[in-house]
């Protein structure tokens, strides 16, 4: 119960941060950080795929409602949640049985970086691919994905470093 309340706090906080501040951030139309997926990245590794996907869908749809893109973020989030377990298994060599919360502390910098790179890259590719349906321009799309991924990773690592100080706050 407390756990869920904590999650909802994070949920609301990340959505507001994303729609009010981060969505307005861009360099000439490039490099928009999609930091709200931090919510999906930080779920405990033991959580079932189904509940992770439902959380991701709710998260994506909420961001969508605010940014007038119904379905776009939701589709990308669900896809990310679906592929998170295999990706996590790909980057970690540890026994799948013990539960852990992905982070620099539990995985180490190198492994966590690989995990963030894969998940953020995947998410940005899907999201921006759906976004640019109307005018397909491969170099622009590629550059957008690249810059947005870098911006997102930067945000995630900042959050990790801040989170390390008050590490008792978990969800």
């Amino acid at each position, binding site marked *: 119960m407390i756990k869920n309340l904590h999650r909802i706090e994070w949920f609301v906080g990340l959505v*507001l941060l994303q*729609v*009010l501040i981060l*969505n307005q951030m*861009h360099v000439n*139309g490039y490099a*928009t950080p999609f930091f709200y997926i931090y919510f999906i990245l930080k779920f405990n590794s033991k959580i*079932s*795929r*189904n509940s992770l*996907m*439902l959380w991701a*869908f709710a998260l*994506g*749809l909420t961001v*969508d*409602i*605010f*940014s*007038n*893109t*119904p*379905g*776009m973020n*939701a*589709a990308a989030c*669900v*896809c990310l949640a*679906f592929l998170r377990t295999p990706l996590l298994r790909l980057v970690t060599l540890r026994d799948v049985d013990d539960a852990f919360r992905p982070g620099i502390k539990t995985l180490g910098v190198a492994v966590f970086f690989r995990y963030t790179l894969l998940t953020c890259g995947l998410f940005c590719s899907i999201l921006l691919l*759906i*976004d*640019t*349906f*109307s*005018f397909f*321009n491969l170099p*622009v799309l590629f550059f957008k994905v690249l810059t947005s991924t870098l911006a997102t990773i930067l945000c995630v690592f900042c959050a990790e470093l801040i989170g390390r100080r008050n590490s008792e706050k978990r969800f």
Partner: protein
Amino acid sequence: MKNLLDFFLKYNYWFLFILLEVISFVLLFRFNNYQAGAFFTSSNQVAGAIYEMASNVTGYFHLKTINDDLVQKNVQLELQIENLRNALLGYTADSTEIEKLKEDALNGYSLYKAKVIKNSLTHADNYITIDKGEKDGIRTDMGVVSGSGIVGIVYLTSSNYSVVIPVLNSKSSISCKIQKSDYFGFLKWDGGSSEYAIVKDMPRHSLFSLGDTVVTSGHSTVFPAGIPIGTVEDITDSHDGLSYLLKVKLFTDFGRLNAVRVISQKGQDERLELEQRLKTNKK
């Protein structure tokens, strides 16, 4: 049978995944339909209220530059009015004539004040949310302009908020013309910079030059004729070679849009209703 059930149970997450993706894409493509519900957009109550609060704060940040622009514009307009008045006095000895002209300019249209509470520039399909809705008299298909030029067309309305399709949207198509020569085309946006749009279907024999002003044509009920859009920056041939493609530098700076006006033509409802009746009769 048991194997089949086992299979379904084991791979149940696949079904949830497909279900959620299908819902997402249905929402995505339904939104392209005109009658999509306003609930899943930022014109719903909660999202609208949050954006309104945020814009009450951020609205102050640009006030200085906006003020500068307004002062500049005011001075320009005052000078222009002075010149025109003098010119007009030369033609007509009667000064009441001028008052009448002023009234005629906006005759048949009413203006509603509104404030932009949510704006985007970087998507392929950008939308703007404004803080006025059906309660204030805003209806779908009304035109939206800013102090410097055209903004877009009202797309969805809820009771207190509305979503506007600005020029910066692949769905936007606005009838426009070259101010000097009256040749007309369609204003579209092809992505990329928010400062430029393109005019399509400009006939081969039309006369214009770089730097000419493009204005609305007044061929629809949405905008009256003569609202400034931008200046011609570049001229190229269209893909089929049958018409010109003009690159237009927009007057409106979408990056810091704040106060806008919604234009409604008096009798627009009546005209729409009439056209609607014609459609149903045909069926």
